[in-house]
């Protein structure tokens, strides 16, 4: 047992760091908020990585994975966090991709995996509905067979960045008579199909990150069904476990703590740098300690995965702790900027203004990020749902 990096791993880190320094688009360094980003900004790094063969490291090698060890993947995420890169979005790479290569047909693999790898095709997730949040299996969107098509009707919500999406993966009810979980199917929908309508939802931070997606008599060819009809719940759960294991965001949070320390060294409180204020410094240390615990927990989980175990219910721990830490980080960052947390930079008074916003640069996004990150304990299965999963799968109650 040891925490040291081997010479080969050090060399890998050097290689990765050099590649990022050389290839990462300069104009996308240290992006503040994704609300300010254009479609191509999201995809730029993904496309570069696709060409390099590094866009889907965790996939099996036969589908384009890199075959990296968990330690190499850890180094990869650390180096990306260090450079604050805009990483490929999870919807294709970590969500639908693994479902397709695990349960999909050969035709589906051939059709969809290349676009996910290359970053040419943007995917979105159609899971939640207005009436089906934590109780996802109560979803009401229906897919009715009509010859070699499904006719889909219903309303999905919280569809992240669907305004840019080319394709979506949707959970639809195909057997209304079966028990809730047993009548659901996993269907791929081309977002340009007639009857698909995406309406933005304005969020607390002023941005439009999520949408309502309306499906009205949408005709989808049956070959877009993944796996078996009515087995969609199994695939949905498989996907969520994959989603959760990447959700801890350890490397990003470590970078966030460094930035927080920089801010607190720059801010003044009672005539001294804020970081010298023991009450504040204590909270930063506590956060760092909890983050260290999470980091080792994630590495232990990755090591278990390498030993042949897929992401299991332990990933729920990573989701709970990881999102709690992300939220505390943004909370402390907002606390650190003090009164300059209040100005709103997206309002009408700022429209068409060429003036530099008030307050230090690092204060610009503090409140918006704090508001935005409240989502993390709600999405991907709320942290309460994660506790239900651990109760059932680990405690056996």
């Amino acid at each position: 047992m040891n925490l040291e990096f081997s010479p080969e791993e050090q060399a890998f880190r050097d290689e990765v760091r050099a590649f990022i320094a050389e290839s990462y688009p300069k104009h996308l360094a240290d992006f503040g908020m994704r609300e300010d980003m254009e479609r191509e900004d999201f995809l730029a790094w993904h496309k570069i990585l696709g060409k390099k063969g590094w866009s889907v490291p965790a996939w099996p090698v036969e589908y384009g994975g890199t075959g990296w060890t968990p330690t190499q993947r850890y180094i990869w995420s650390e180096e990306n966090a260090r450079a604050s890169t805009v990483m490929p979005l999870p919807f294709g790479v970590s969500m639908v991709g693994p479902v397709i290569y695990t349960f999909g047909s050969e035709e589906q693999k051939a059709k969809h995996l290349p676009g996910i790898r290359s970053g040419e095709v943007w995917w979105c997730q159609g899971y939640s509905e207005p009436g089906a949040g934590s109780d996802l299996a109560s979803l009401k969107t229906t897919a009715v067979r009509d010859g070699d098509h499904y006719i889909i009707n219903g309303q999905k919500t919280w569809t992240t960045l669907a305004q840019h999406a080319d394709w979506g993966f949707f959970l639809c009810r195909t057997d209304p008579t079966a028990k809730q979980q047993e009548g659901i199917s996993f269907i791929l929908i081309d977002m340009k199909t007639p009857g698909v309508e995406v309406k933005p939802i304005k969020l607390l931070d002023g941005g439009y990150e999520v949408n309502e997606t309306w499906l009205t008599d949408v005709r989808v060819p049956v070959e877009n069904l993944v796996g078996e009809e009515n087995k969609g719940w199994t695939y949905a759960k498989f996907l969520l476990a994959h989603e959760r294991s990447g959700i801890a965001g350890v490397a990003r949070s470590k970078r966030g703590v460094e930035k927080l320390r920089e801010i607190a060294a720059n801010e003044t409180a009672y005539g001294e740098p804020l970081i010298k204020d023991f009450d504040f410094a204590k909270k930063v240390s506590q956060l760092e300690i909890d983050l260290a615990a999470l980091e080792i927990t994630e590495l232990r989980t990755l090591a278990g995965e390498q030993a042949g175990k897929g992401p299991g219910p332990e990933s729920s721990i990573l989701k709970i702790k990881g999102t709690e830490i992300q939220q505390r980080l943004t909370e402390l960052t907002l606390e650190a900027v003090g009164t300059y947390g209040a100005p709103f930079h997206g309002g009408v008074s700022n429209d068409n203004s060429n003036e530099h916003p008030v307050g230090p640069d690092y204060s610009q996004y503090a409140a918006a990020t704090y508001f935005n990150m409240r989502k993390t304990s709600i999405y991907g299965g709320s942290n309460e749902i994660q506790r239900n999963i651990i109760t059932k799968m680990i405690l056996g109650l």
Partner: protein
Amino acid sequence: MDFNFTEEQDMVRDGLSRLVREQYDWETRRKAIASAAGWRPEIWAQLAELGILGMPFSEADGGFGGGAVDAMVIMEEFGKGLVVEPFVPTVVCAGGFLKHAGTAAQKEEHIGGIVSGERVFAFAFAEPRGRYDYADLETTAKKDGSGYVLNGHKAVVIGAPWASHLIVTARTGGERRDRSGVSVFVVAKDTAGITTRDYETVDGRRASEVYFENVSVPAEALIGAEGEGLALIELVTDEAIAALCAEACGAMKVAHAMTVEYSRQRKQFGVPIGKFQVLQHRMVDMYTAYETSVSLTYLATLRLGSDEVERKKAVSAAKVGVGQSARLIGQEAVQIHGGNGVTDEYAIGHYFKRLTIFDSEFGNVDHHLKRHVALA
């Protein structure tokens, strides 16, 4: 980076697990800690036979060449059974001082006896007014010819009633809280001028107040350089903290498992109380606290050989995180056991007590959070 245990470590775990299960059952333990002796020398002899007491010493010193990870494995099993025998004072603390700074003669004199189980140590460092500052010493060691004369009062010396020898910290120079001027001595407990007042601790162990009145010790009693003992003490106590964190993990694991099992058996409102979500989520939080504690214990253990700042940060992180988890798990375990949790009869309360006292050993959560802030 590697999180696997070696085959030898798996064997040590299995062997100790069997010993605890077969010979350290709850009733036997209860009788032993209530007996006049308060411990079981025959268990100690078996630990020697199994090679546990010689684990961390190099083969050249007569040990088995183990390391911090071996100590972690051992302590986790001790924690599961609430083993009271003084492995940390004798093997981790006294053993640590001898290993890191002992002269050839001191190693020759003491290590063989530790490995064979014949020599038991206690570590006399705390003082009534020193709290968690190892340099805040009123005990003095004054030069007298080639030797020293010790005077002072050491507080809550764990395992001292069972010990034949003591490791003692004392001031040989400087002012009360100076970093320099702290020295470490090894003395036989029956040396003239040493008196003790022995008592039980709330978590089932034994301890003493140890008084030194003009205790003459030879120059050979000094471990390490005179006046420069503080860095050594910090190293050895960091090793002790990592070991205690592993013990706490073992105790937390059992306390959590007992609580989940109890919630399956105990019925109220016609159903097992484990069906109530309000309790389920609390038991999940206990489980998460246990898992993150294991992670921090790994971190501390694997950083014991790192540079001083890295080591201290990792050890303090663990003492803070494991301390907080120990409090949470101990209190919640009692709460979910209801009235039975506060009885002497149920084992859970005794796990709670051990987890409670763990926090104050070698610095509590606040102390180590402060140390972490100072090092950040």
